[in-house]
């Protein structure tokens, strides 16, 4: 039971950390100053959420590892984030399409987790959902602005959605661990969230004069540690210092 919960927490934590790390790559490279600041703020929210989750995971494990060791001393095949989140940032349209699809999903997940039987998770969800609400508002604005903007921005955001869509089915995948956690009232029935997510996404895309891509084949494996080639590069960058100087502190 503790082991399952530990693995479940890692999935959530790894999503937050990898997403935060990707967004942080925009720091100093944003298209305008306000967006640079917005994405850095958003990255900080996700890294803060990841820290809270890793601390709890360390507590569950009870082996004297701290949150930093869990984050910095694990290899790619021991990371359980969605493959969607490790995809390179691309242009601003791609980053915003990913941000929108992920945070619309994550908002629904957190909404369910506020009722989790695990008291840490429910507290965590109540805290984090407030932050994610702002992430949804921010990315939604950009989808509307780019979709219903110029010919160039419309084409870019549409092609971002077209190319990213195949990473979305993994968000709703219910494997044994997800089922077990959901049945115990700790986790979330992801499949049940899909119609709501789909219709909310569709409504915004429609308002943005965009076409919602049709569901087809999807990538899978991130939740079990099978990743795209991109994750290794993120970890190499992120973990370099702790690998080169183990235990280094500020």
């Amino acid at each position, binding site marked *: 039971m503790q082991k399952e919960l530990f693995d479940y927490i890692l999935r959530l934590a790894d999503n937050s950390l990898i997403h935060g790390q990707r967004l942080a790559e925009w720091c100093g490279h944003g298209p305008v100053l*306000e*967006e640079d*600041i*917005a994405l850095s*703020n*958003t990255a*900080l*929210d*996700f*890294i*803060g*959420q990841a*820290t*809270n989750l890793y601390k709890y995971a360390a507590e569950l494990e009870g082996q004297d590892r701290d949150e930093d060791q869990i984050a910095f001393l694990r290899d790619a095949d021991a990371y359980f984030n969605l493959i969607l989140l490790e995809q390179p940032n691309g242009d601003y349209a791609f980053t915003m399409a990913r941000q929108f699809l992920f945070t619309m999903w994550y*908002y629904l997940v957190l909404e369910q987790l506020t009722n989790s039987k695990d*008291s*840490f998770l*429910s*507290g*965590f969800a*109540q*805290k*984090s959902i*407030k*932050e994610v*609400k*702002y992430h*949804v*508002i*921010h990315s*939604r*604005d950009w989808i509307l602005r780019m979709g219903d903007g110029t010919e160039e921005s419309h084409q870019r955001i549409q092609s971002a959605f077209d190319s990213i869509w195949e990473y979305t089915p993994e968000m709703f995948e219910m494997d044994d661990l997800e089922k077990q956690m959901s049945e115990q009232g700790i986790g979330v029935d992801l499949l049940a969230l899909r119609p709501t997510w789909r219709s909310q996404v569709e409504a915004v895309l429609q308002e943005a004069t965009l076409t919602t891509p049709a569901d087809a084949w999807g990538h899978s494996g991130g939740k079990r540690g099978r990743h795209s080639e991109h994750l290794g590069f993120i970890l190499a960058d992120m973990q370099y210092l702790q690998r080169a100087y183990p235990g280094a502190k500020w």
Partner: protein
Amino acid sequence: MVNPSPDIDIIWDWMKQVEDPEIPVLNVLDLGIVRSIAWSPEQVLEISITPTYSGCPAMKTIETDIGEILEENGITRYQIKTVLAPAWTTDWMSEEGRLKLHQVGIAPPVGVSADKGLLMGKIRTVRCPICGSEDTSMISQFGSTACKALYRCENCLEPFDHFKCI
């Protein structure tokens, strides 16, 4: 005999000296981030604090500053815990805190935090802290710190920070 454990009310009062490092006009009580102060049966002082935002970089400094105030007052056995639930909300900000924000040109949070309409594009009216006009527009949801958004007044044309309502 000297009482080694000062009264809880006195300790609450000391907390007024702990500033938010990012918005120094506010102290931790104005923000509502100190949730509880109590003596344990073993006479260890237990203080619970809650972050405004999950990734708030000020938390570590605030924890250190609280520790310093306690030590200055002769308390050596204390424990500062971070709690996530119940989640911090701007509804906990004191009236005095709101007034102080307004005085330094930061528009305080408006409305109630649990408003889901915002998700689908609802917009709140934020009053300009400089001229008082309601004719303002948002420049960015994210400002100089995690807790603020950036606005502009269409009347006096000044840009200003708004403390977001969460």
